[in-house]
């Protein structure tokens, strides 16, 4: 266990900025193991940006970097994302 680990609640503001809806209750499916979880429940690591990891298999679901007025997102580890609108 990494003491620096956070969870999806930590990126609530950043994701809402991009998607304009509340995103911690969105449900994602892991592209690695197929588990489904609320974004608020996934593991988050902070460095130059944020890496969201599956709490079951640690697959990197999303990588998000915000800099100079732009947000860059790599979602290659995420199979689906279901959002309430």
């Amino acid at each position, binding site marked *: *266990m*990494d*003491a*620096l*680990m*956070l*969870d*999806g*609640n*930590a990126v*609530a*503001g950043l994701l*809402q*900025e991009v998607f*304009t*809806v*509340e995103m*911690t*209750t969105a449900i994602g499916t892991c592209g690695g193991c197929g588990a489904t979880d*609320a*974004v*608020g*429940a996934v593991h988050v690591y*902070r460095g130059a940006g944020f890496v969201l990891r599956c709490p079951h298999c640690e697959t990197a679901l999303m990588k998000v970097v915000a800099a100079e007025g732009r947000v860059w997102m790599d979602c290659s580890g995420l199979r689906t994302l279901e959002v309430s609108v």
Partner: protein
Amino acid sequence: MAGAAVLGRLTWRAADVVGVATETPRVKTIAFDVDGWPGHLPGQHVDVRLTAEDGYQAQRSYSIASAPDGARIELTVERLDDGEVSPYLTDELRPGDEIELRGPVGGYFVWEPSRGGPLLLVAGGSGVVPLMAMVRRRAALGSDVDTRLLFSSRAWDDVIYRDELEGLNGDGLRVHHALTRSQPPGWSGYARRVDAEMLAEVGPAPSERPQIYVCGPTPFVEAVAEALVELGHEPLRIKTERFGPTGG
């Protein structure tokens, strides 16, 4: 869920400091009036942004401590000595000052009395803040939902909201303290870290299917969540919010 509280593009808003109160030697509560505040749900947080004269900006998230109350919100902030933002908030802010914040954000780690119970809240240190918003909302609405709060602090003088929690104890709310480092003379509460045995004594049984909210430092949340699952609570009913040591 109240759509107005969770939908829409986030905008930075001016927040006027209207009060500063000392909770413990390291923790203060700062009250703000926020221009255009849309209201919030207990458990939501705000992003706070500070801008230096040279344009450098630092941003942190803080849970809202207060129950919904018009344009007024309260943040309870623990001072982290090497923090970039928290020492400014706890040491420098005075009534009349203005900062920028946006929110409310988050919708996963929230609870309203209409969601029912029983409710088990487990807090480590300043992790009590979003849980206190739930407890205050419950009290404000006169709810009698069966609620247990297990609150781990280092010592009696480090217990945030100590007097208010004593006053709220009752009417279906039971507050249990665990003091991990030192205890006052004659202490009859828990004197160790939260463990499975303690959670079994304090909390509703897994068969009662309580809604569980755990907030605190990451190692605390991990240990508590693991113990709850070990006791037989359903993982999907355990909601966690972790804050890392770099949160300051």
